């Protein structure tokens, strides 16, 4: 009997003009929000790339250095913003972004374990 009543209520709700209008408006708002979010995401990624490109060019253009001196230099990079972030950017989109990212590969030396930990702690915060 409960199933009969539930089925009746569901069909009645679908046929109710008020429900159809409300559902249409909600779906339209959702579509607009998704489009706006996608546009914002694309704009932001483009701005990040534009901001990062000169810094990257400067980094690659520098002369080779010895590992000790290289450890004092770094490259600013933006944390990658993944596609789902436009639906839910997380608790705080500003925190740890951009981060100082020390890069040593150009200087042919490995980044130390301590620096890796530091990067992780910066990312986590």
């Amino acid at each position, binding site marked *: *009997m409960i199933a*009969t*009543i539930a089925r*009746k209520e569901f*069909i*009645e709700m679908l*046929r*109710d003009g008020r429900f159809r209008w409300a559902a249409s408006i909600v779906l339209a708002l959702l579509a607009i929000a998704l489009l706006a979010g996608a546009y914002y995401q694309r704009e932001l990624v483009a701005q990040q790339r534009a901001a990062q490109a000169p810094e990257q060019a400067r980094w690659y253009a520098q002369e080779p250095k010895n590992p000790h001196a290289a450890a004092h230099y770094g490259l600013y990079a933006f944390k990658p913003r993944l596609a789902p972030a436009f639906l839910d950017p997380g608790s705080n989109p500003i925190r740890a972004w951009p981060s100082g990212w020390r890069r040593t590969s150009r200087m042919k030396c490995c980044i130390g374990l301590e620096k890796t930990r530091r990067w992780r702690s910066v990312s986590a915060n």
Partner: protein
Amino acid sequence: MLSAEGLIKRFNGIAAVDGLSLTVGRGEIFALLGPNGAGKTTTINCFLGFVAPDRGRATVGGVDVAMYPRETKRVLAYIPEQVNLYSHFSGLENLSYFSELAGARHREETLRGFLAEAELQKEAHDRRVTGYSKGMRQKVGIAIALAKDAKALLLDEPTSGLDPSASHEFSVLLRRFAMRGAAVLMATHDLFRAKDVAARVGIMRHGRLAHTFTAAELSDTDLEKLYLETMQA
């Protein structure tokens, strides 16, 4: 099938039904006449189990309504003055829904058969009931009673507001329903329709059954005269 024995029901100390006793047998139509406030609806509500009598008892098929309301509801059908149906559904869907609630699942052809038996036009079966007239709604009510295979039918002012043709059509349906062996108790203001359709007629006043007689006993004029005399007494 329907029996009231010394039924008393008071509201705030005022007796709506005051020692009413009546019986309606299988295949019989009993019409209750009376003015507003005579206790007709309260009597019907006692049979339906909507109202518990203060004294006396109402029984359906020998089963006390107050003690076994669910069991008695299974064999009862009720048609109020305005049959409320679900407006987003067609007549057929309403019939199917109410039948299922009553525990009777029927195939679509069977349901259409009940609607046809209740003389609802075929083209209205699949139309939403928002466009139904009062008479059409009453027919769906009869179809629900048929689908439920009700042993007793209670009606409260079913013909008020119906045009003479629809009222006559409804009387024919009631007679046909009673011929299936069901007891029919109808409260009405319509003297002519009561005499036309019922085998027995009762006139209620102040919660009491003032007169009971067979419809054949009195002419329309005599019935009107007796009714007016009862009201003025």
